[in-house]
């Protein structure tokens, strides 16, 4: 069945709520409206007011209350209307939820999913375009995922809901209706913590995730067609824990790595990935570990600015060429 990225998320919610009566959805405008992006559409009709809850505008409350329900065995899936507003729930995520199991001596679980529609390229400007993932990937006790395909969107959301820990689930707004694929019927999951090779290639490896996956694939194709280069593309999918083995295997196999993300360069996850490689696959490297990412600024609104700021296929192609030439 063909499904968009958005439909895949919606389907996962439907199926998980049907499977487990403890799963419920909570957030601003998620019930009657079906969400600002319609991701939760139909859930209210299917599951009723007790399982699809419109809340006041209070992100800290939303996450905190979800923690309270989760430690008592519920499986809340909460929505930040835009991922940008996750900053308003920051303390509840990084201190309350992330330390919960640890500070209870391992005797607690907090099965909580925080859905955060994120990403740029939709004229969203400073406060509707952020890629906040790296604020969370440095926090033990959390898991962080960022699917880039409809299959992964569905499979990772199911895994996140079934996980006993707080999972921050970044879904890319630009993909909601622009990314789709045929999904297998019925239940399937995608494991948290496992990267996926999206394209084989021996000349160099691109390591990416989320917003830039499809651009990276496009760039790899262009580099093959125009330059005869064979470019591997690894989709991290999970950002915490990182799939170290997959990252290091890619670096060892091709010796040339390009790390790509839509988040800003400085302090993005690319730094961590490059550092892992520079430490643990150094002897295999034939060239510097390069990064292509958004410029170190806020995501500006005006199209010439946003285009300049964001990575994108052209910049990736250029980086492939220059790295291949090293």
């Amino acid at each position, binding site marked *: 069945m063909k499904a968009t990225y958005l439909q895949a998320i919606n389907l996962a919610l439907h199926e998980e709520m049907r499977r487990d009566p403890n799963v419920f959805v909570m957030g601003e405008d998620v019930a009657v409206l079906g969400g600002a992006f319609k991701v939760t559409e139909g859930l209210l009709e299917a599951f009723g007011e007790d399982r699809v809850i419109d809340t006041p505008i209070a992100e800290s409350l939303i996450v905190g209350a979800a923690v309270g329900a989760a430690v008592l065995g519920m499986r809340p899936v909460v929505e930040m209307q835009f991922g940008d507003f996750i900053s308003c729930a920051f303390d509840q995520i990084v201190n309350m939820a992330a330390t919960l199991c640890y500070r209870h001596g391992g005797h607690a679980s907090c099965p909580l999913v925080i859905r955060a529609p994120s990403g740029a390229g939709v004229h969203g*400007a400073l406060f509707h375009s952020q890629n906040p993932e790296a604020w969370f990937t440095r926090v033990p006790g959390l898991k962080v995922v960022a699917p880039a395909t409809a299959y992964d969107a569905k499979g990772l959301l199911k895994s996140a809901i079934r996980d006993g820990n707080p999972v921050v689930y970044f879904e890319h707004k630009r993909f909601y209706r622009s990314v789709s694929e045929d999904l297998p019927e019925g239940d399937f999951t995608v494991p948290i913590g496992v990267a996926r090779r999206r394209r084989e290639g021996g000349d160099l490896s691109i390591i990416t995730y989320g917003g830039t996956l499809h651009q990276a694939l496009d760039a790899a194709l262009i580099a093959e067609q125009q330059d005869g280069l064979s470019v591997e593309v690894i989709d991290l999918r999970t950002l915490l824990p990182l799939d170290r083995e997959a990252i290091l295997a890619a670096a060892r196999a091709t010796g040339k790595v390009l790390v790509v993300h839509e988040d800003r360069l400085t302090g993005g996850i690319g730094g961590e990935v490059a550092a892992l490689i520079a430490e643990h696959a150094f002897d295999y490297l034939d060239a510097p570990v390069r990064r292509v990412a958004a410029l170190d600024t806020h995501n500006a609104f005006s*199209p010439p*600015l946003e285009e*300049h700021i964001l990575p994108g296929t052209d910049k990736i192609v250029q980086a492939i060429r220059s790295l291949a030439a090293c």
Partner: protein
Amino acid sequence: MPEAVLTEATQEAARTERDLQLYYAMKLIRSFEERVSRLHRQNKILGGVYSGAGQEAIVTGVCAPLVEGDFVAPLHRDLGVFLARGVDPGVLMAQLMGRVGGLSRGKDSFLHAGDLSRGVFGATSMLGASLPVAVGAALKFQLKREKQVAVAFFGEGTSSRGDVHEAMNFAGVRKLPVLFVCENNRYAFSTPIEKQMAIEDVAQRAQAYGFQGYVCPGNDLLSVLELSERLIGRARQGGGPALLECKTYRYHGHSEHDPALYRTKEELLEWESRDPIPQFERYLERKGHDLKRLREEVDARVRAAIQAAVEFAEQSPLPAPQEALEGLYAP
């Protein structure tokens, strides 16, 4: 000229002058809002557009008593504050179109930009986050023994956020010169007020912070004006903060993308019957103005102003790509 020697006639003339200014301001805001919605449909404005049509009396009435040096933090629906505080309509339109002539030089769209030279503070999108900032402006006025005031607008939905509480509480503790203005339009996106709070009036909250709350019909410019003059005047004299709740309604959806299916047509119609502009026009008529002539005259001025604004904005260039890295830091 000290107030005492103003003759009745002079006072009356001043009031008439003010009435005409307010009328023009409301009409300008309304037309500007509608033009923005149209430009959005035409894809000439790309960002999110949150129309304040229907709520013009509030921004107009609250801004009227403000003077130079005062500080205002508008909410996402308060395009009118910019106009009421004298921001050039062309500059505002350029802002919405992402041009260099806009307040943020294309960095953000819509109202995430301010004009600090006119005391208009640019909000972030995070609802309620401007209230602590307005309180900080009021703190500055207090510490420096200045007679300025700060005004912070917020929606009834926003009142649920922690920042609103923290800000009001501190304002109460220090008796800061700040007026909190709640534009209660009954909905926060699709969420009706009953799901937002268990009380009738946001104004009730003021008591929890040791100051007074007031409710007024937000579509009645004269009511808004009377209260805002009183409360801003009192804050200016050291009388401390107040909370003014204005009951109102937004005509459009939450944003221009929102068909607002979560509310009834009747409700909309009922509120349209209380539109702030005809209400004020009836007052002007009672005051003896020739409404037909006045309306024609004002409409013409408004049309011209907006036409000029659109022209200015459309002629203003888009920023050069490399500007993306400029303006991150103050020099």
